[in-house]
């Protein structure tokens, strides 16, 4: 009997042990080794020594900060664009999906069943200079003959947005689906009406600012996108968004917004496939540098330093996030 009791107390640890051991040996320890490796000196031919060369962090960051900054800007923009695209989609599925709910959810995750590389290569075909999208537009004369999308920052950001859109949409859907629809009805019964004129102003401000940033990053100049984005923002703020949405739906969707933006931003910042396949040498990201430093140049110390900085930046960001929304929420939200 006592033996059985002791077994009982040990049971959770016996179940945990093999899996957690695997994660400690092949996740935690390698992260620590990466830190040690960043403080090596030498090269692959003559061998490496542990020299604790802390200066490498300063050197690596000062040499590669444009790539780091670009990764954060591209990843951030892709996250915002994925939110702008994914929120109405998740909303429509959760609130108006009806009998098509499961079919629509299935279509949202269907891209996952196709190789990530093949999907990105498909975009190469679709965005080609006289391909599916640009070909007809050039034929009618809407776009000038020399206009291109492929090999521009726009294509990289669009590719990242596309690849992680399902990661954004699914948590948003889960959060919106949970909302008790009677709360929104109650808000409307209590005279929650349209959100104008504040909605119009907020729409213009957000649309204009986003258009400005996207336009600058994508090299289209400050106004090419900010004017249409501001108009779109005004229309959305005037007619589509009501007070019930601002006061009830949006606050209740916050856990989904947090989870979705994390699940999009983290892989987006580290991505290098989109930049490599859809971009140009001026639109490379920190992932491209890390990959090249490790696998092509075998400059392990610099590559490890950059990789460690990337990991640390994300962990610090996560820590702040966890402080804001609570650890349980954070680890639980990824379900």
């Amino acid at each position, binding site marked *: 009997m006592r033996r059985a009791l002791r077994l009982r107390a040990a049971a959770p640890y016996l179940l945990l042990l*093999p899996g957690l051991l695997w994660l400690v040996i*092949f996740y935690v320890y390698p992260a620590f080794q990466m830190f040690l490796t960043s403080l090596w000196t030498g090269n692959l031919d003559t061998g490496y020594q542990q020299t604790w060369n802390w200066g490498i962090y300063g050197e690596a960051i000062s040499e590669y900060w444009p790539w780091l900054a670009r990764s954060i800007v591209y990843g951030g923009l892709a996250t915002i664009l994925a939110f702008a695209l994914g929120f109405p989609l998740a909303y429509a599925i959760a609130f108006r999906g009806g009998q098509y709910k499961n079919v629509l959810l299935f279509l949202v995750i*269907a891209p996952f*069943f196709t190789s990530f590389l093949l999907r*990105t290569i498909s975009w190469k075909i679709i965005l080609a200079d006289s391909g599916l999208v640009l070909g007809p537009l050039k034929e009618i004369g809407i776009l000038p003959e020399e206009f291109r999308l492929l090999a521009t920052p726009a294509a990289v950001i669009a590719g990242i947005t596309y690849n992680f859109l399902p990661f954004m949409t699914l948590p948003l859907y889960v959060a919106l689906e949970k909302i008790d629809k009677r709360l929104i009805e109650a808000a409307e019964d209590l005279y929650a009406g349209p959100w104008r004129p504040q909605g119009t102003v907020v729409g213009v401000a957000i649309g204009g600012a986003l258009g400005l940033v996207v336009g600058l990053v994508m090299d289209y100049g400050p106004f090419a996108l900010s004017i249409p984005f501001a108009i779109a923002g005004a229309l959305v703020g005037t007619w589509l968004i009501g007070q019930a949405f601002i006061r009830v739906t949006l606050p209740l969707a916050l856990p989904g917004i947090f989870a979705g933006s994390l699940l999009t931003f983290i892989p987006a910042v580290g991505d290098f496939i989109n930049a490599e*396949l859809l971009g140009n040498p001026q639109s490379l990201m920190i992932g491209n540098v890390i*990959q090249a430093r490790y696998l092509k140049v075998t400059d392990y110390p610099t*590559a490890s330093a950059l990789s460690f900085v990337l990991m640390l930046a994300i962990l610090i960001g996560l820590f702040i996030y966890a402080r804001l929304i609570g650890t349980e929420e954070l680890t639980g939200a990824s379900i």
Partner: protein
Amino acid sequence: MATSSAALAARRTPADRVARAVDRWLLPVYVVGVTAYLILPVAVMILFSFNDPTGRSNLVWRGFSLDAWFNPVGRPGLGEAVRNSLVVAFLATLVATVLGTSIALALTRYQFRGRAATNVLIFLPMATPEIVLGASLLTMFVATADLPLPGGVLFPLNIRTVMIAHIMFCISFVVVTVKARLAHFPRNLEEAAMDLGANEWTTFWKVTFPLILPGIVAGALLAFSLSIDDYVVTAFTSGQTETFPLYIYGSQLRGIPVQVNVIGTIIFGTAVLLVLLTTFWQRRVAAREYGAGE
């Protein structure tokens, strides 16, 4: 009073009729548009698997042909790469599913110290960019290469290191999937089995396991799809071993053969079929469980 009548009047303005129309028409049109955007690259991939395979690359449409479909691995190295991918995916899924399910069971059915730390350890690999996962494993494999071991290098880069890496990043996803299933578990069924004289072992295999099996299968499917599609971590841990994603990446510089699209389409079709079958099966199990719970 003034505000309420204003609000009521506002509901009937032409502007609000616009809002109603937008609500009825714009949202469906938008949904169709965005899902089309999501599916378009998949459709292009499938379409180009029927391209005439005579050219050097598969970026331009040359005409309908079934040649690649009759000879899906007819390129040097492609068959080997696909076989490696399948072997890695099967074994990594098997191990990750066993390890992940055990952790999920421990987390949902026992109270123990260190639960919060366990949750964080499960969460972190999912919150680390793939390139960091791959890079840190590579630094460990490189650092252990100089250890004076009798058997030579501890982790020579080959299919085994790829499997180690894939198991590592699959475990967390299995835990999360199985845990979601266990959260709604009808514990009274287990108590009933124990009351009827079954011991813990029998109860687990006769009652618990059949009920959580759909969750385990869902976790395994997720692990399999993550493993078979992984490029980034594999690129860092594979050495000379080639997998299907590595083959695609390598050939995209020289020009991708049509056969790659054929295999991509087969993987897509299989995945869709498996997910549909599992969903159908899960519904049946859920219905039965509900009936039993009455």
